């Protein structure tokens, strides 16, 4: 756990970088510090391992006051990843990852085993161990940076725009990978970015800072998007706040419309009745074990119903997808209806544009 208690950083020229910062980062939580440049987010992060020292106030890491801890020892206990990654150009991948274990004097065997383990953990191909950084791709370098920070399995990690140096496509993939990794390792992480979308995606909680290092709001992404604390936060969240919020909600969290469902073997008359009740001129056809077969117009029904007439749905969403992804899929659909499945082709119901619009209205209501 990391706590900031009334932390202030003022430079000799009078500039205040961080002003009266109070913040708690729980064990195993990713807290993203986000804000425009000059908001003191990087300064705040760097005070945790004493790369910068606070003018007043107290920062503790796992209960220890950092100012009472030897900086060299403190830093060896805290993982650190920066934007340019800062790999040592004169050391191979394996040597880079081994940096802190070597400083701590681990024996060779233990270091080698740990390096091999980490190369696998962060998803690097095996052949890279003996390559120098300039022989790696941007994405690989970034993974080496993360592996190096994880080398001694520190409980706390500091990450300063760790995905800033790679192109957007690779960035998205690295973010997903990192979230999967974090789900296994449960590090306590302070993560700095200027990108609100990255903050929403990566953070368990987000701290939004304004120029001069003043904390504006410290909440979960969903709460911040639903209820921005003030005009600054609202402005910083930018356009499409509702859409951003939809991206946080998985499809499975909203009730699905059951729809006009018939199973193979039902008589055509029963099927027509079901369609009539739902007000449609078509039905969803499932197999006996609720596997989705497709849909068909009631006029084309066989009697009893078989799977032969079933046409595939044009728009399909997975229960794990976000509502934003569902909306995106529906925008392109002329029927405004998507079928919702889980575990491949298990039918769960229908998602309509109206349901998503209702969810967006919910958002506006709670924000008001």
């Amino acid at each position, binding site marked *: 756990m990391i706590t900031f208690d009334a932390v202030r950083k003022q430079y000799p020229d009078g500039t205040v970088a961080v002003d009266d910062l109070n913040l708690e980062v729980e064990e195993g939580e990713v807290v993203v510090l986000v804000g425009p440049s000059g908001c003191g987010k990087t300064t705040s992060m760097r005070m945790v391992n004493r*790369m910068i020292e606070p003018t007043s106030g107290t920062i503790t890491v796992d209960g220890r006051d950092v100012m009472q801890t030897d900086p060299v*020892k403190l830093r*060896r206990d805290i993982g*650190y990843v*920066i934007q340019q990654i800062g790999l*040592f150009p004169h050391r191979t991948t394996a040597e880079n990852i081994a940096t802190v274990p070597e400083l701590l004097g681990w024996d060779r065997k233990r270091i080698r085993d740990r390096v091999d383990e980490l190369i696998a953990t962060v998803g690097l191909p095996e052949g890279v161990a003996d390559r120098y950084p300039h022989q790696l791709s941007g994405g690989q370098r970034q993974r080496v940076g993360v592996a190096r920070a994880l080398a001694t399995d520190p409980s706390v990690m500091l990450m300063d725009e760790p995905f800033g140096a790679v192109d957007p496509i690779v960035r998205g993939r690295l973010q997903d990978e990192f979230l999967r990794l974090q789900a296994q390792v449960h590090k306590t992480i302070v993560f700095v970015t200027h990108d609100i979308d990255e903050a929403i995606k990566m953070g368990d909680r987000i701290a939004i800072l304004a120029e001069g290092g003043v904390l504006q709001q410290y909440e979960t992404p969903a709460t911040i998007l639903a209820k921005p604390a003030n005009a600054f936060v609202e402005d910083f969240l930018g356009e499409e706040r509702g859409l951003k919020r939809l991206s946080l909600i998985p499809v499975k969290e909203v009730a699905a419309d059951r729809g006009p469902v018939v199973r193979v073997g039902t008589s055509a008359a029963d099927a027509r009745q079901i369609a009539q009740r739902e007000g449609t001129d078509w039905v969803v056809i499932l197999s006996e074990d609720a596997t989705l077969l497709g849909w068909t117009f009631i006029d084309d029904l066989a009697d009893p119903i078989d799977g032969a007439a079933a046409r595939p749905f044009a728009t399909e969403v997975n229960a794990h997808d976000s509502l934003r992804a569902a909306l995106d899929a529906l925008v392109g659909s002329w029927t405004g209806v998507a079928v919702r499945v889980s575990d491949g082709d298990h039918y769960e119901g229908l998602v309509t544009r109206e349901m998503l619009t209702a969810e967006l209205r919910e958002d506006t209501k709670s924000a008001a």
Partner: protein
Amino acid sequence: MTMALLAQTGRPFPDWAWFNERNVGELRELLIEHIQLTGLALLLGLLIAIPLAVAAVRWRRVYSPLLAFTGVLFTVPSAALFILLLALLPQRPPFGLGIGTSLVGLTIYTLLILFRNTVAGLDSVPPEVTEAATAMGYTPGRRLVRVEFPLALPVIIAGVRIAAVTTIGLVTVTAFIGQGGLGRLFLSGFRTQYTMEIAVGLVLSIVLAVVVDLALVLSERRLTPWSQSRGAGT
């Protein structure tokens, strides 16, 4: 010029008879002396320049004065400097016409290049690498030895190459103050008007400079395998 010398001396040129047993034996000694003087001057130069460079990187304010000082030393004409040193240094060995006076002069000439390149080398270390090293828990001293110096090495070695070639040339000048390595061949060649002797000294000192330079290039490749594809000395 060779034609003029030939006309003056009247001895045959090239005179392969010069390579008799006595001369070849002496040549070997002169070559060793030349290499020793060059190597020692470079070593002393590095021992002085590196701490100065580390200080200049740490305290920026001393950089300009140090650069100006070593720069002024570098501009003093070599003959003048050696004569001056002969007058200023003690007369007893190893100074006077001993190796000491020559070494002091040669070392002084290496300082500007070695100092400037070591500073440039340390400055070329990417700031994010230094930051990462600090954040990983390197102490400043260990960081200097394990991270900054290795990364500065290509630029430092580029300086050593220039200093080495310059020094090999300057060693010949120290023939005037009792040393000189291959330079002694010039002195005695001119004295006895023996063109062959001058030519041997000339060719060998050029060959020595080229060989040493190549050796340094190869050692740089060996020492910095990580920078090969980025070219030497950058």
